[in-house]
């Protein structure tokens, strides 16, 4: 059987790079049976596929709800001269499908990212907050200039949007929109897709973007344990996230980055610890001390320092003393957390 290797060289835009890796895998495989492997080699993702390469993309890959969320900042106008970005992406993938696959077989291919790229497409802030206009240009004195949009070559852009549409987990709170994606350290496509689909349907606590990120990461670890998914099938090392702030008009950039899963992997040795964290995040929907607990726990999960540990612990004790109905840590589960408090 023929084997192919595709290379996705990293540009430094973490989420954009990971979406390209997932997008390339789905472009090659579509929704057909069989598996494909994505691996993170530090400077590049490598997508390995065994079998006959398709000549055309699977038509089903252009369906789904994800597309609308990516291009939510695009304003449709009746007199618009430009096509909708989804149509542009579809056009690139249908017309230049072989070219897309071919250039990614070259280990030296790097995406072109600039203010102006020939035949380029706009990189939306929804798939990487670094692409937001205000981030790159200095404002001089009183003059106000919004900045120009970042463009990326159409081949890289198309597969990134494809990956975002099918693998991005979009969560919306009262004042924020976030996109979450586990970094494919070493994953088999089908298992990763199942994990992502399960997580998208989960009801996460969306009090704030940090709580959503922490809750998502905890659920991810629980899911991997529940389905007894081994590291040879799916191994994630971090969760990539992108946060936008809702405004009266278009969403504005709020932050983004990478959350390393080391701490959660350590505490996951005691499964009940994760279950307990999940219970506390689930209480976060209720205003008052329960919501405060979820927020303090999220701070601790994202930065397991002694200071955050004490803040959370004191709050939980207050809830207990106030006779609130909160779950109890036992010496085994809380002890497991204490083992991994940093800088102590």
């Amino acid at each position: 059987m023929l084997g192919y290797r595709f290379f996705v060289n990293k540009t430094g835009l973490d989420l954009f790079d990971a979406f390209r890796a997932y997008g390339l895998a789905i472009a090659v495989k579509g929704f057909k049976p069989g598996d494909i492997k994505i691996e993170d080699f530090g400077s590049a993702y490598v997508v390995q596929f065994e079998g006959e390469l398709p000549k055309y993309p699977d038509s089903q890959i252009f369906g789904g709800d994800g597309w609308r969320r990516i291009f939510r900042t695009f304003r449709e106008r009746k007199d618009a001269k430009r096509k909708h970005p989804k149509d542009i992406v579809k056009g690139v993938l249908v017309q230049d499908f072989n070219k897309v696959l071919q250039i990614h077989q070259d280990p030296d291919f790097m995406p072109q990212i600039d203010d102006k790229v020939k035949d380029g497409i706009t990189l939306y802030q929804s798939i990487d907050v670094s692409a937001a206009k205000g981030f790159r240009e200095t404002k001089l004195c009183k003059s106000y200039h919004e900045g120009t949009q970042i463009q990326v070559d159409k081949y890289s852009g198309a597969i990134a949007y494809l990956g975002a549409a099918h693998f991005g987990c979009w969560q919306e709170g009262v004042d924020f929109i976030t996109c979450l994606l586990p970094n494919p350290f070493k994953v088999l496509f089908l298992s990763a897709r199942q994990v992502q689909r399960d997580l998208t349907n989960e009801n996460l606590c969306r009090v704030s973007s940090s709580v959503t990120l922490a809750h998502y990461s905890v659920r991810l670890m629980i899911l991997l344990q529940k389905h007894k998914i081994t590291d040879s099938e799916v191994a994630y090392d971090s969760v990539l996230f992108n946060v936008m702030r809702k405004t009266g008009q278009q969403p504005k950039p709020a932050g983004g980055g990478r959350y390393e899963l080391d701490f959660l992997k350590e505490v996951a040795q005691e499964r009940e610890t994760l279950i307990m964290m999940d219970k506390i995040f689930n209480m976060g929907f209720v205003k008052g001390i329960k919501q405060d607990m979820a927020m303090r726990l999220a701070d601790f999960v994202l930065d397991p320092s002694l200071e955050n540990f004490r803040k959370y612990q004191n709050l939980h004790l207050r809830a207990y003393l106030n006779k609130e109905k909160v779950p109890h840590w036992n010496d085994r589960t809380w002890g497991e957390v204490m083992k991994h408090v940093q800088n102590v």
Partner: protein
Amino acid sequence: MSRMYELFQNPAVKSFGMALRLAVAQHEDYASLVELEYVENIQQFTAAVKKFLRRYDSGARRYEREHPDKSAFKPTEDDLTDLIKLAEENGVDVVCATLVAHALVRPAKEAE
């Protein structure tokens, strides 16, 4: 593994932690809890522990008066010496955090 867990397992911390848990749950001694949360140096820590022991002792005596056939749990003098030594060696913030942790957690069987 963090040093904190070793402290959590230390007999002196366990003994004082259990006393704090009883003091908070049975005698509603929230003052000691607040004082332990805000100590910043060893002098304040020693003072807070002394005050806690005074309050705990009166609570324990009351318990023994009300339950003549039972004796209340009390940390020993050696536990106190060890606790102060641990605070000097490891810092008061870590030791206080582990004491409060004992007040927070339920033994595994009880929690189930």
